[in-house]
């Protein structure tokens, strides 16, 4: 357990985003091995590795996604890399693209070969200009040296890779909204299975489409270069390999840490230099959408899908935020609810209206206008949002608030009763400068 640099092995090699340096460091070893196998054998290797999607949902990559694509080229197939990293707290895909761009591209090429696809798109959020330039550079070099384009390495495999940049929308990290955006529309999601087909059956332009996260493709590159069996040696029984955890907040050394699946949560905090400027109060281990855990509930939590799930939270994207005891949880939740309100695409009423209600209630509470019954109202609104929309953004807006009330209810009660933070002027985030007493006169 602890740090295990598989995907990050070469990130500090000078010039690793140049093709000759990449080739000298086992670059394209995975693709060469894959091209010498049958496509199905490539999928079996990924299944053997036990890789699960690293975007947040943890779907078995080989077994459900790659294996779900039709095993012929009767119709055009598409590969999409979801590089719209938007989950607050997460910055791992940024570093993977910035520092190991070729490993992402190689993984997409391997996926293309394994699933009879000849076109791939990497959808990068518009804010990520620096990482996107490194991907552009890598793709240009790959084309120039025959690792992309027609007849790759003389095998007859054709594969084109295009970059498509977003323009500011968290919702476009949701796979169906991403596909809408790629096709030139507003980033609205589509219905999920069983009401609509999976993307591997019908995705972009109604054609079979594979959508995976940046880290998943980088892991696939490692798996094909070293063998699925090697990958499966690491991690736990159901969560194989490594997870890149993006650690930030009140720690001494915020950074991305690639750790073996199953590493204890508290060990990660130590690896990141421990808590600063106070004592540990709370951790959000997997991005703002996962339930926040108080300090006294962290001892048994391990960083794998089952370990987090068994302890009331989720591994999610690995956006690991650490908060010390100067943190006002109610103000934190207000800012979190503001994020979801802004980012709701607006299509579905429970999310569009519900996220706005959650923000308005929390804004009123933290402006001195809290009323008895507000906590119940928050929980009631959450129950009216959860599971009732086309995508999970609304759910992601509720889970943090339900968890925060469960573990930090006295702080909410204090705000409502005393119209200020229990931490006074020292709180982070700070109390809003302008308190609006008029807000207490209006219903939420």
């Amino acid at each position, binding site marked *: 357990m602890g740090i295990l640099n598989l995907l990050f092995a070469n990130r500090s090699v000078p010039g690793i985003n140049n093709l000759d340096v990449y080739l000298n460091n086992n670059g394209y070893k995975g693709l060469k091995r894959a091209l010498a196998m049958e496509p199905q054998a490539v999928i079996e290797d990924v299944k053997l590795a036990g890789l699960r999607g690293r975007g947040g949902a943890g779907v078995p990559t080989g077994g459900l996604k790659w294996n779900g694509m039709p095993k012929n080229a009767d119709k055009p197939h598409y590969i999409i890399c979801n590089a719209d990293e938007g989950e*607050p707290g997460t910055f791992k895909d940024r570093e993977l693209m910035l520092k190991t761009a070729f490993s992402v591209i190689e993984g997409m090429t391997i996926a293309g070969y394994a699933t009879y696809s000849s076109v791939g798109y990497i959808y990068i959020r518009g804010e990520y200009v620096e990482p996107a330039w490194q991907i552009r550079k890598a793709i240009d070099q790959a084309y120039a040296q025959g690792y992309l384009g027609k007849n790759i390495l003389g095998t007859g495999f054709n594969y084109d890779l295009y970059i498509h940049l977003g*323009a500011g929308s968290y919702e476009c990290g949701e796979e169906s909204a991403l596909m809408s955006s790629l096709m030139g529309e507003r980033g609205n999601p589509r219905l999920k299975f069983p009401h609509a087909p999976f993307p591997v059956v019908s995705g972009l332009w109604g054609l079979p489409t594979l959508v995976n996260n940046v880290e998943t493709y980088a892991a696939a590159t490692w798996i094909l270069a070293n063998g699925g069996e090697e990958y499966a040696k690491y991690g736990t029984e159901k969560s194989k390999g490594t997870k890149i955890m993006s650690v930030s907040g009140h720690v001494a050394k915020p950074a991305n840490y690639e750790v073996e699946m199953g590493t204890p949560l508290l060990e990660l905090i130590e690896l990141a230099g421990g808590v600063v400027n106070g004592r540990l109060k709370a951790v959000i281990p997997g991005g703002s959408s996962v339930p926040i855990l108080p300090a006294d509930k962290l001892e048994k939590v391990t960083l794998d899908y089952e370990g987090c799930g068994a302890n009331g939270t989720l591994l999610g994207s690995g956006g690991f935020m650490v908060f010390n005891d100067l943190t006002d949880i109610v103000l934190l939740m207000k800012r979190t609810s503001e994020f979801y309100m802004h980012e709701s695409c607006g299509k579905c009423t429970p999310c569009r209206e519900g996220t706005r209600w959650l923000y308005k209630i929390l804004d009123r509470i933290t402006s001195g206008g809290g009323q008895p019954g507000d906590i119940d109202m928050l929980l009631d609104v959450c129950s009216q949002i959860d599971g009732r929309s086309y995508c999970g953004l609304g759910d992601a807006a509720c889970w943090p608030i339900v968890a925060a009330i469960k573990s930090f209810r006295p702080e909410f009660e204090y705000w409502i009763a005393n119209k200020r933070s229990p931490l006074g002027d020292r709180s982070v985030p700070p109390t809003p400068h302008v308190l609006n007493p008029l807000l207490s006169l209006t219903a939420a």
Partner: protein
Amino acid sequence: MSSSISISLGPRQPLPEPATEPRFSAEAIAELEEIATHYPERKAACLPGLWIAQREYGGFLPPAAIHEVADRLGLSFSEVEGVATFYTMYNLRPRGRHHLEICTCLTCAVLGAYDIVHKLEHELGVSVGQTTADGEFTLGEAECLNFCGAATVAQVGDHYFTNLTADNVMNLIDELRKSEGYTPTKLADAIVKIHIPGSSKTGGGSRSAQQLEDPAGPML
């Protein structure tokens, strides 16, 4: 054309007249046509097309820009307007020469982001959302920019500025005043260029090809 139709582009405006003069340069048209070949349907070039338009129209998208994108892609005005109004990075109104987008989301919020915003409001004399009288700075808050390890982060044009505090942010302001880069037009140019195969040879936006050699930023 009926003047009773209103369009939700902020304050009520009359139905826009068709653009009198298209503004896409020959290079811009070539870029749009190249990008359109990446997809089986021309409509998919809508987002890149709006980025080209934002560059050609000086960093924002007036109705004429939306018209031109719609014309060139064979889409309706309302379809393209629908896309332009959905995504936060498309500017429907002009911005200052530097658009300061300070992240105030979770980690940045507990590490002083609001102190930075208040400091800038005080020093620049504007509220969030406003532009300074000299047209130099527009102050904004951003949702998570996803570089939380280097909090507090601000995006200005095509660059992330990192480890900002209320004490050091005015240094950034001084640097930006002197800089030709990190403008809304340069951001749009960088994004357009990134779509174009081979563009890493020449760079774009605020960066030359030389500056792409090694990734910038702290070793996180």
